């Protein structure tokens, strides 16, 4: 895998001075994906499932072919893949359809302070409504979810475990497979937030044996407006739809109606057709490179950058030991929003704030952090520019009196 060559696939990087280090928020898109979107809009931009004419048949085939690609991508079955607006929508679907209909005040839901708001807030809502208790896994001193700590909160009352596969702030990989095994022993289902895992590592839902899993297209080279919810067939079968309307129903009468089987039961209305087709193209691109190459590359860049960062005075790195391409840090005494404007001046895109994960920011006892995240199109030169800019930023802010 040659990142210098790959850069050419990403039109945003035609600006050679740009250093894009905000993939954890959204990835850039390769030409191959953009072309696929154009192809849909230029050649067969018609609706799916409904038309009996050829163009509509082609559109439907391509839409469903993407579902097949997604299913193979995570080793699921075809009808276990539900297309949603994004990971947030997918995680809400799990909580609303499964959570609201299966939990009572006797039950417990395990989450963590390491979750993105889109994983923790839907379950906070389920807890508010059903009175099931929300239980937080205590994080270890690095801010990790560990099997040891997980065991402390798991018990017979646990009905749902909702945790991340990879944290979008700390970049840690959770011991999710072991957590799932333990959860199943007490009869709990596990919903995995894989928004930061899907772009970076091979996911195998059969091997993990997870019950639900969610991710977004736009973080893995795909278009905006498309996400995926995986659910085990047996679970989906008994779950009610949460949106009602065209295409998801079977027979409609004045006062009652029946639904199609999964996945269609959960996909009402005209779906994000172009989005799904574009996601299929993104998966092709990733498969072509291979996840082993991608994650090795990211890890190399991250280790390189962390090593250099640690040598700069006044730099605080919060996740030195992380296994993925995310670095969360601060310049001592400088508010991250001040800092990020400096980096922007050097045409380096990075994130400052709470990263939609206020609980871990509070846990870190800071107001906000800076975050960079490396991906397949980043190079050692990007790292060097970044490190140089960090040094200059530190010097600048000290010089003006921070």
């Amino acid at each position, binding site marked *: 895998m040659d990142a210098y060559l790959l850069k050419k696939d990403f039109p945003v990087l035609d600006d050679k001075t740009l250093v894009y280090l905000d993939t954890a928020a959204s990835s850039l898109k390769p030409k191959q994906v953009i072309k696929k979107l154009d192809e849909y809009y230029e050649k067969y931009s018609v609706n799916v499932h409904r038309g009996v004419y050829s163009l509509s048949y082609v559109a439907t085939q391509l839409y469903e072919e993407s579902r097949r690609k997604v299913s193979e991508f995570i080793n699921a079955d075809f009808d276990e893949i539900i297309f949603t607006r994004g990971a947030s929508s997918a995680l809400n679907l799990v909580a609303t359809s499964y959570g609201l209909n299966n939990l009572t005040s006797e039950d417990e839901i395990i989450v963590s302070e390491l979750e993105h708001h889109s994983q923790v807030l839907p379950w906070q809502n389920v807890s508010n409504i059903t009175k099931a208790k929300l239980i937080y896994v205590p994080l270890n001193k690095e801010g990790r979810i560990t099997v040891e700590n997980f065991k402390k909160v798991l018990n017979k009352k646990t009905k749902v475990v909702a945790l991340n596969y990879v944290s979008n702030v700390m970049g840690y990989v959770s011991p999710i497979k072991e957590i799932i095994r333990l959860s199943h022993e007490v009869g709990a289902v596990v919903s995995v937030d894989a928004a930061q895992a899907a772009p970076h590592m091979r996911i195998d839902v059969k091997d993990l044996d997870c019950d639900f899993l969610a991710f977004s297209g736009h973080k893995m080279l795909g278009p905006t407006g498309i996400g995926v919810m995986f659910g085990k067939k047996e679970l989906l079968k008994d779950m009610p739809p949460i949106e009602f309307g065209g295409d998801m129903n079977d027979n409609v009468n004045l006062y009652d109606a029946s639904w199609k089987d999964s996945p269609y039961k959960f996909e009402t209305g005209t779906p994000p057709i172009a989005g799904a087709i574009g996601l299929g193209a993104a998966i092709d691109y990733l498969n072509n490179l291979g996840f082993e190459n991608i994650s090795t590359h990211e890890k190399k860049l991250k280790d390189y950058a962390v090593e250099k960062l640690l040598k700069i005075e006044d730099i605080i790195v919060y996740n030195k030991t992380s296994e993925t391409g995310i670095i969360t840090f601060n310049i001592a005494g400088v*508010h991250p*929003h*001040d800092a990020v*404007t*400096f980096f*922007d*001046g050097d045409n380096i895109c990075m994130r400052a704030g*709470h990263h939609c994960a206020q609980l871990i920011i509070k846990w870190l006892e800071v*107001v906000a952090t800076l975050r960079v995240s490396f991906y397949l199109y980043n190079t050692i030169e990007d790292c060097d520019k970044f490190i140089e800019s960090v040094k200059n930023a530190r010097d600048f802010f000290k010089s*003006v009196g921070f």
Partner: protein
Amino acid sequence: MRDLEVLYRQVIMEHYKNPRNKGLLNDSTYKTIHIKNPTCGDDITIQSKIEDGIVKDVRHDGTGCSICCSSASVMSETLIGKTKTDAKNITETYLNMLTNKEFDESVELEEAVVYRGVNKFPARIKCASIAWKAFEGTLEESE
């Protein structure tokens, strides 16, 4: 980095390090407005006390970047003692200046004029405006 340097070297750092009129009062003669910047989490509360058409006091508290916090301090110094009409006028002028709208250059913005440099950093305009927007809110409440 010239633009950034110009911006920070001036009034901003001084007020960021030594904020004037900081801290809220538990006094019902003050109107209070709390605003957050959804983009970046800046979080500021402004209090104002208007008496006989005069801005008697302005208080502020919160967390945020240097531009956000300093602008609250600068604002308090600029507005205290002004008539309500002048304060309103200054606020409007300031906000127009920030967003590159036409504004009345004859209005005396005093130290607040340094925030003109923020329009080189469009992503930070909100940081420089929320304190003033909150002040506007307190004026509306006092009507």
